């Protein structure tokens, strides 16, 4: 039966996008690291494979566009919740064009597409944390208040609270949902501070799972029929300590996914896909 906010983590579709060669040199990054595009593509293929084969999602693969070095990080281009998709206006000017392909793809999926046309608004999907009950929007270098307002307008059912993000690129650079009502959070001070704010702003009480590494706190939770709780998270190779924390989760299908290369251009696990639930939608 249709119900609001039912089935957090239930997805039927995913949208991903290929990695352009330009990623290596031109993708925006906060570090100076060199990116091995082949390695990155390998990782990405494995990632998509997990979604497609292991989890059985319908994966829409958009072709890479060389003119958008960051286009693999599809998460920033749209926010999908229920059957509404908000096409964002990415904070980085070089990325604004990424939304075109995304918009087409979302429309093709028959979603109710809302566009952010306000020129004063910026929003990266990476700053949007949907907890299943409400949104937290990080106000970062990429996302501003106006962007958050438009998001709030697009998803009227939910409370949208803003959280200042100062020390990292995105809100989800140090947190994500690890389950219904479970926030996975990095242990850095800014991360913990942000969590406090989120807790204060929320009418709901969230549990938290603290992992030693901020970036490891970015994981992908799904709740799939016949598979139960599924968590895509960092590998032991990458973040051994954080990995141990994830390993303690019981009743979870834990799927470590390597993200060594993409992380060099600030790409986290969630960044590389947009997850959509078409089945439960009404």
């Amino acid at each position, binding site marked *: *039966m*249709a*119900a*609001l*906010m039912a089935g957090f983590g239930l997805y039927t579709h995913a949208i991903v996008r290929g990695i352009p060669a330009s990623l290596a040199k031109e993708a925006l990054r906060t570090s100076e690291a060199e990116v091995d595009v082949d390695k990155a593509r390998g990782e990405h293929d494995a990632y998509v494979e997990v979604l497609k084969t292991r989890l059985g999602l319908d994966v829409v693969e958009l072709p890479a566009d060389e003119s958008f070095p960051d286009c693999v990080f599809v998460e920033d281009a749209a926010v999908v919740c*229920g*059957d*509404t998709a908000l096409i964002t206006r990415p904070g980085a000017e070089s990325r604004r064009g990424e939304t075109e392909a995304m918009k087409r793809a979302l429309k093709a999926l028959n979603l*109710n597409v809302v566009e952010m046309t306000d020129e004063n608004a910026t929003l990266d999907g990476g700053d949007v944390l949907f907890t299943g*009950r*409400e949104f937290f*929007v990080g106000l970062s270098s990429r996302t501003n*208040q106006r962007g*958050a*307002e438009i998001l*709030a*307008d697009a*998803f*009227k*059912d*939910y*409370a*949208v*609270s*803003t959280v200042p993000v100062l020390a990292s690129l995105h809100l989800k650079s140090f947190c994500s949902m690890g*389950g*219904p*009502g*479970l926030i996975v959070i990095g242990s850095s001070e800014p991360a913990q501070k942000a969590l406090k*704010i989120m*807790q*204060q*702003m*929320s*009418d*709901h*009480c*969230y*549990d*938290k*799972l*603290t992992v030693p590494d901020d970036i490891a706190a970015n994981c992908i939770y799904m709740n799939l029929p016949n598979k139960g709780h599924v968590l895509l998270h960092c590998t032991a190779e990458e973040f051994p300590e954080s990995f141990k*924390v994830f390993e*303690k*989760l*019981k009743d979870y299908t834990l799927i470590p996914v390597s993200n060594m290369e993409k992380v060099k251009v600030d790409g986290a696990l969630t960044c590389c896909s947009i997850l959509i639930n078409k089945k439960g*939608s*009404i």
Partner: protein
Amino acid sequence: MTTEVGSETEVKEKAEESADQPDQSEKATEETREVASAEGEEKGKEKEKEGKGISKFLPTWLKKQKSLSQTSPTKDTALKEEAISVEKQEEEGPAPEVNGLADEVPEKEAVKSEQLKEKEEKPHSKASTDTEPAKEEKVDESVEKSPEETKETTEGQGVEEEKKEQEGEVQGEGEGGGGGGEEGQTSIFQSPLRLVRKTKMKLVVCHVTLLDGTDFSCEVEKRAKGQFLFFKVCEHLNLLEKDYFGLTYKDNHEQTSWLDPMKEIKRQIRSNNWQFAFNVKFYPPDPSLLTEDITRYLLCLQLREDVASGRLPCSFVTHALLGSYTLQAEFGDYEPDQPRPVDFMSQLNFAPSQNKEMEEKILELHKSHRGMTPAQADAQFLENAKKLSMYGVDLHHAKDSEGVDIMLGVCANGLLVYKDRLRINRFAWPKILKISYKRNNFYIKIRPGETEQFESTVGFKLQNHRSAKRLWKVCVENHSFFRLNTPEPPTKPRFLTLGSKFRYSGRTQAQTRTASSLIDRPAPSFERTSSKRISRSLDGAPMISITEAGRDSAENGREHRLDDSKVKMVDVSPGDVEATSAQSPLRVHVDNIYDHDKTQDEVLKHQASISQLKRSFMEAPPPSPPQTNQWEKRLTSSPATAVRVQQQQVVSEPHAEAAAAAAPAAADCTISDTKESAKTAEVEIEETVVIQEVSKATKPGLVTVTTGSPASAPTDQETREQEVTVQEEVAVPKDAKAAKQESVSSESESEEEAEYHPNVSVSLSHTQIPEEKEEEEEEEEEEEVEDKENEDETAEPNMLAPDVSSHQAETSHPAEDISGGVVESQKEDMKKNAENEKEGRETEDSTDDLMMTPEETPNGVALSEEAVTGLAAHVGEEPEPRMNGEPRPQVICCSEPPVVKTEMVTISDTFAAQKTEIATKEVPIVHTETKTITYEAAQLDGTGDGEPGVLMTAQTITSESLCTTTTTHITKTLKGGLSETRIEKRIVITGDCDIDHDKALAQAIKEAKEQHPDMSVTRVVVHKETELAEEEED
């Protein structure tokens, strides 16, 4: 100008009265003579006369009578007493003026018929003077109702005229009888009251718009409380779980307010539009916990309206989903054979932006609900609606510290702050230590976080003080309902509140759940009335047509008038003083009202040491009646009563000792009279010099402010109180003209500020906020997590218990001065100062210990940004919560010899208001300074107030020059054969010059002694109120 201190009623009506009086007395006398001369024919004649000629001044009296009739029984007594006083005073002036003082008399009831007989020569005419109005009123009433009564009345009077002597006696008896039953002639006074009260209570038709859009009309007594109507509606709806609901009305400003169940409807609506709407007041966080379907149904109706009007925003899909459940509940299963045409759908109002697409979606979803019963559909509707983020959030427009428009949302969990559609902050109830408002500012005091050391206060600016108050009330109610086990009693001494005493009076959610679990009746059948909704939308009438009709025509009510009164203050010319005093100036004193009883404990503590020092100067405190009770009384009973209470305390004490029968003499006969009194006779001269320095900011109206007070009371201190008491009425009665009693009680809300300390009785927290604990999966891993969180969540409520007393604790601690930091801890006690003042003022006679607290409590209103971080606070040195910007003369007694100066700094919003901003750095405004010096001689009346004396005369003389106003109030009291004359002088000086207090004090004493060498000076109070320059602010 000579005025009498009357009961509050008098005062209030003064304007009218003074206009009408000459007329009346003339007329009355005239009539009386006629009556006397031609008794036989009199009846017919008079009847005629009353029928016609009288009518011209009927309204005034009629109104007055009515108002009296609404007050408590004591008022009746007062009324009777009025007659007596008139007798005594007749030569001196027209009209019954002594009411205020007369009020004491009933208690003593010592009036002997002998005394009366002395004056028996004239009792008749006097009596009639006063009687006349009553009669008229009655006649008027009777005319409306039954002609026979008219006859009776007239006859009654006729009889009265015939038997003058008997009458005197009878009257004496009546008087002696005090508040008891009235016999014989006295009934003339009383009968109109009776008419009103007992037999012919006026009924009013109330129109209540129900949630299904229908109108429910019922008759209620004009003076019925909100509760009565509410219960009637619930009865009509067959609703048992009624605590979630309430009635709303639109005030004169088109603002929707909740009808207070504990107050008279009439007092609240402020207009003659008896239109209400039945609404959900507290949205149950989990509607599935409601016991009855009918309750859920009503909640559904409310939510449908909320959704359709856009008040409860939701997405397209949600609109469609909710709409589909609505269809299912109201129409049953989707009929495939006869698909509902979409145009039919458009007649139903589902969403503010409803379109074909949505309607199709609704129909589509409706199909999927096949087989669902209406109750199930409602339940599903609620299950979805309750998840909406704005479910149960009551939004209020406000501005933050930077003047940015925000919305404050009050809900079950706390207070939410929105900017546009974004939630930018949230204060859960457990985080809030105190909620208060002052003028148009709304403050919440926040419990310090783990890392913070000090409480912080967050301030918001509301549109006006009404909005601030409305928000405050909603907060108080929501907190009480959702977080408390039982409502907090309004007068709980621990939570001393400034200003409004308003508390939630209904059942809490916990209580109502318990109660509804006991509901044992077959589920009532009810009709889900879709048709009505349809027809309504067909009409094009707004779904939320709560009280569209006629509200706009409302004449200005209280609030509006407040503004008016301020304006008036400015304009008042000396000549108007009498009239205006009853109305305008009072406003100023508002927030002091409740200080008094508020913190007696605290004050006591605080002042203990001080008072010890002073003890030698003080007489033993007379047995002081519990102040709180008095205040309660005051609030709940007629003003007259209140006045009396005070007078007993202060005025009548000395009188008790007074020597025999002072001749009622003219105004200035002071000294000689006094001398008649025996050794015990005590004369109190109270000279009060109120010196005001008016800064540029001060309005000229000041003068009026001060003048106003003297006009009303015997003692300065009392005057104040009286004013305070009267004040709201002043605002109200103009339109209502009704009993003062109600207005007094309603006054509890009239002040411009109030506080509320959300205090949670530990246990509830978790049950109340089920969501907060819902998810505890991954328990293992989260152990640490949960621990922490539980700390947050559980600890808070627990911490509340200690908090209950925190206030007191704070009070007793010297306020901590947090220096340096941006965040300064806030001193809790603005009110404390005020209280102290008040205490000092009020209790000087009774509780000397309390009197003086030259108090220097740092306190202030901390204002801060609403961000968790930026807390603005300010610590005023000695702020005092009075109405700032409007200096009012306040007599504060520092009981002195050793002169103790009380210097106070008032926190004022004036400046903030101008800036529409309360910023962190702007320490709110400390710009009024008050100084009070009191000289008080040991009182001679050792016995205290054993028995109140009988008031013989009272009069007030007011004279004014350019910048001074002198009010002399003389009362003579007769007590046990001794008479006492008490002269109180009040001099208000308004001007720019700097006045030396000590000098002024000395001068005042000197003058008093010179003028009345035979009398003793018992008290001199110098009060100075200065507006400080603006640099006081940061």
